[in-house]
């Protein structure tokens, strides 16, 4: 784990994909911040309607999930297949916690008649949050497949590129949320 390698962990293609994803999210964040310049009062007013506590729970859920994923990667590199499987299952559970909380938040907004066209703030908030939500769902599918394959003993200390590839994608999903949370809910 300490040696310097030429390439990042996992397949190179996932890193190109991650950079493309970060570019899109980065443009989204920049557009949010630039639009806010001329709408500061509107953004600050409607920001107060968001559930910061739910966002805190979601941040803890995603951070925990990312931590469990790295523990799974460390375990598989030590040929501890059963431990790797258990850590990955825990990661999936925490990802599902995020989905449950976020779905409830979306349902609450829909019940209050809030849509993309309600105002500029909600247009950005709902678009960003839902775009990220879809990434969490895709990431959960990836983690689920990895967990299933781990249970079948398909990975080892020598054969774990798929695990690192899926893990890298999941950490990217976590990374984006770590920016989204303060930018949209707190600042």
């Amino acid at each position, binding site marked *: *784990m*300490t*040696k*310097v*390698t*030429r*390439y*990042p*962990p996992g397949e190179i293609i996932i*890193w190109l994909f991650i*950079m493309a994803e*970060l570019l899109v999210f*980065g443009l989204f*964040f*920049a557009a949010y*911040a*630039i639009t*806010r*310049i001329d709408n500061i009062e509107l953004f*600050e007013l409607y920001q107060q309607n968001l559930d*910061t*506590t739910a966002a*805190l729970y979601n*941040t*803890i859920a995603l*951070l*925990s999930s*990312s*931590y469990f*994923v*790295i*523990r799974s*990667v*460390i375990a598989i*590199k*030590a040929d501890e297949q059963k431990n790797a499987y258990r850590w990955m299952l825990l990661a999936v559970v925490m990802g599902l916690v995020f989905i449950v909380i976020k779905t409830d938040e979306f349902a609450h907004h829909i019940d209050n008649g809030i849509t993309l066209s309600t105002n500029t703030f909600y247009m950005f908030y709902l678009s960003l949050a839902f775009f990220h939500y879809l990434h969490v769902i895709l990431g959960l599918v990836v983690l689920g497949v990895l967990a299933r394959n781990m249970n079948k003993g398909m990975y080892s200390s020598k054969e774990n590129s798929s695990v*690192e590839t899926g*893990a*890298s994608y999941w*950490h*990217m999903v*976590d*990374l984006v949320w*770590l*920016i989204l*949370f*303060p*930018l949209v*809910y*707190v*600042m």
Partner: protein
Amino acid sequence: MKIKKQSTIVETVVFLLLIMLTLVTYQVGKMGLSGVNISLGVFAIALFKGALISEHFMQLKHASGLWRWMILIWLILLGIVIYLAFTA
């Protein structure tokens, strides 16, 4: 085994640090603190958390050259854009 134990300890410390910084951000939001400096401070914490994810959880600290810097550069660029937008 020693390397695995070291990795486990480091990643656990990083995880606890990430949780602690998240709680700080949440508290700032709950206290209703406002102002450009507060906002930029909160975002600086977010960028630091992102760097921790990149270096440790994504394991880019082991990669060389541009591969190691790709996420960090993204965070720096984002920081510059947010700084300019919030101080405009």
